């Protein structure tokens, strides 16, 4: 089975990193994965997104027409990508910043205030981890513990070990709230 | 009186580092003298067997033929960048590039300045004759104001073609180079000075002191439309007024 998710938001909301952690977790879980970022000047302040494909077979296209998942960190992301979602797809919406619900009635939508949950986890910048946790719960694509381990290792490798605890808390906040 | 060949003492001979291949230069041109001085320097320092020479595009395109050392013929203007690649790959080699004014100071401007600015441990022999000899006497970056060339038939008009560029002075603004000097060949003293300068430049490289540049005011009797003697007088009396001789940097 092949599953795919577009993670989208403003530059600075951490969507690129959330995608990398998901891809790493999928790989650690024995899946084939691809991670494809939008790249270039738009990453420096505009909108950013990445696409992660996870499959138990070799991945063909890293670009997807109909993703089975969407993480919308802001309103423009929901507006842009909702229509693409596959039937029965999963959409996780940041209700802190998105003032509408999904138009589609053939998808499963989850609305959570990522910004509030991140703040209660102890660091407002962990909204990407809140979002990832929520998506993991809604999609079941990779076990929570695998994602936490992948995240901890990646932070450690980039010399940010002291951020591991708060990010673990944030990913759990999202997972439990979803 | 018949010459007593058997008892003659040899007081002057071709440097062992030169192959003896016939030069392709015009009569009276200074390239031959410079080539000999380099060969003599390689002999004196005993470095020919670990030297890699770079021949440019221009009258000295055949420079790979003259020396008994490994050599590369390289693209027009790129010799200083190619020398960078050679030297970084083989720091134990002695690397020199031989470049004319069009090569070094016009089409190779970026490569020349940046090799110097990185302080590459190479030696550049920069031959300045103020003209493009091989292609038929066109304007060079160093052509003097009012000098007639085949592309400035009425003389170099600085309002249209700019002024002769003192490229060694440009490079002397940089912090990295170890040795930058301008020399000439119009009389015995200047030939001796040039010989000493080239030797110092190679010595600095052998000692790992960094980038060295020897600019040599050269002659082009053919395209200047002068005799070799007139050419030497022209360098002494006219060219050195625009391109003064002497050391610009010596950080040895």
């Amino acid at each position, binding site marked *: 089975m092949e599953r795919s998710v577009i993670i989208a938001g403003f530059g600075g909301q951490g969507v690129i990193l959330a995608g990398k952690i998901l891809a790493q977790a999928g790989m650690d879980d024995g899946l084939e994965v691809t991670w494809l970022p939008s790249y270039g000047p738009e990453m420096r302040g505009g909108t950013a997104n990445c696409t992660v494909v996870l499959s138990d077979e070799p991945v063909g296209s890293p670009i997807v027409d109909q993703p089975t998942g969407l993480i919308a960190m802001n309103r423009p992301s929901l507006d842009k990508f909702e229509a693409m979602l596959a039937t029965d797809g999963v959409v996780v919406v940041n209700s802190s910043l998105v003032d509408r619900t999904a138009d589609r009635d053939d998808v499963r939508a989850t609305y959570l205030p990522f910004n509030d949950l991140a703040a209660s986890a102890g660091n407002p910048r962990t909204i990407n981890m809140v979002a990832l946790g929520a998506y993991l719960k809604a999609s079941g694509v990779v076990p929570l513990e695998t994602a936490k381990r992948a995240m901890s290792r990646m932070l450690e490798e980039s010399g940010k070990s002291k951020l591991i605890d708060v990010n673990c808390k944030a990913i759990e906040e999202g997972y439990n709230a979803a | 009186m018949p010459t007593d060949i058997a008892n003659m003492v040899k007081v002057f001979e071709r440097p062992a580092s030169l192959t003896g291949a016939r030069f392709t230069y015009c009569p009276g041109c200074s390239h031959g003298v410079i080539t000999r001085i380099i060969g003599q320097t390689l002999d004196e320092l005993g470095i020919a*067997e670990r030297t890699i020479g770079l021949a440019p595009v221009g009258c000295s395109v055949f420079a790979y033929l003259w020396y008994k050392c490994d050599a590369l013929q390289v693209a027009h203007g790129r010799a200083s960048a190619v020398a960078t690649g050679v030297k970084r790959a083989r720091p134990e080699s002695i690397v020199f590039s031989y470049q004319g004014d069009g090569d070094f100071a016009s089409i190779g401007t970026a490569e020349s300045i940046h090799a110097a600015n990185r302080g590459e441990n190479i030696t550049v022999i920069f031959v300045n004759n103020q003209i493009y000899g091989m292609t038929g006497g066109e304007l060079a970056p160093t052509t003097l104001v009012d000098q007639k060339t085949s592309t400035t038939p009425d003389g170099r008009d600085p309002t249209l073609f700019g002024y002769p560029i003192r490229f060694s002075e440009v490079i002397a603004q940089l912090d990295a180079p170890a040795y930058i000097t301008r020399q000439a060949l119009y009389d015995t003293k200047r030939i001796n000075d040039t010989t000493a300068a080239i030797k110092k430049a190679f010595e600095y490289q052998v000692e790992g002191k960094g980038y060295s540049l020897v600019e040599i005011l050269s002659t082009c009797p053919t395209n200047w439309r002068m005799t070799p003697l007139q050419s030497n007088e022209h360098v002494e009396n006219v060219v050195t007024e625009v391109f003064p001789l002497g050391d610009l940097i010596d950080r040895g």
Partner: protein
Amino acid sequence: MGERLLLRGNEVIAEAAIRAGCECYFAYPITPQAELLEHMARHMPRLGRTFVQAESEIGAISMVYGAASTGVRTMTSSSSPGISLKQEGISYLAGSNLPAVIVNVVRGGPGLGNIAPSQCDYFQATKGGGHGDYRMIVLGPSTVPEAGELTILAFDLADKYRIPVMILADGLLGQMMEPVELPEPVDLESLPAKDWAATGAEGRDPNIILSFDLGPENLKQMNLVLQEKYREIVNNEVRYEESDSQDADIVIAAHGTIARIAKSVVRMARAEGIKLGLFRPITLWPYPYEPLRALADRVDTVLTVEMSAGQMWEDVRLAVAERAKTPFYGEMGGVVPTPLTILNEVRKHAN
């Protein structure tokens, strides 16, 4: 093979070059291959190897020429506009019989174009971007792991034939991440000696590296030597992949990123009963004309799909030689065709 790592295409090419024994790397920054340059900047000095950020693309390829002349394995990388600047040096490398690896992470063109993925440099890479009668071996990786494998192969082929070899990737392959097992480092001592290299003429006659001879008959001979080498490469080094072609009515001919996207299209098409296969050249030069011609005898249609106006399409038509229909679908300007858009093209040609 080592552990499985999640890495970007650009990083994998860089790391594979290091493991292939690349001793000198020279480049100038440009998107979308900056990660390649940055990986080399971090790792080459620590290994005691050479990294120089050159003053320009011309400077970088000229440095490659110098390093290659001494016999070390050397590489430069860039993206389309930068590769245009390198053409002078590539021609000199070819003319001087020097081995070197050049990576082009292609972006949209012409001119400044943009930084999105494209295959619009196919002509430049395969038909000779610089002056003179010369060829480069051109390898077109389709996935991140293959980008690593082909980088190793590029160094081996460059040395074997004393020829510049280009890795023709694109911005998508350079930027995307995929699991990869990196190859073990090559033992430099095991590489064949290069007795032609300029290393100092101690105890032997000088070695002269050049692409120059004023005599037409002599230069003709130098060219004939090159042409003989190219024939040998055509005979020995053609590489391609054929999949799902046994019972196919239609095959997609595509290289690089588009070929991997096409693998998804094959699955989708077969799910709706269209017998679709894939033909993927791995060597873009030498091009697999004969295998494609043999395949064309068995199918009705060879649909070329590219991120260009139809550059590889010319080679496909040359290969197919009217043995099958040869429609074309391409996108330009950095637009990447999605599986569905390609599937729609396939449907138009299905019976």
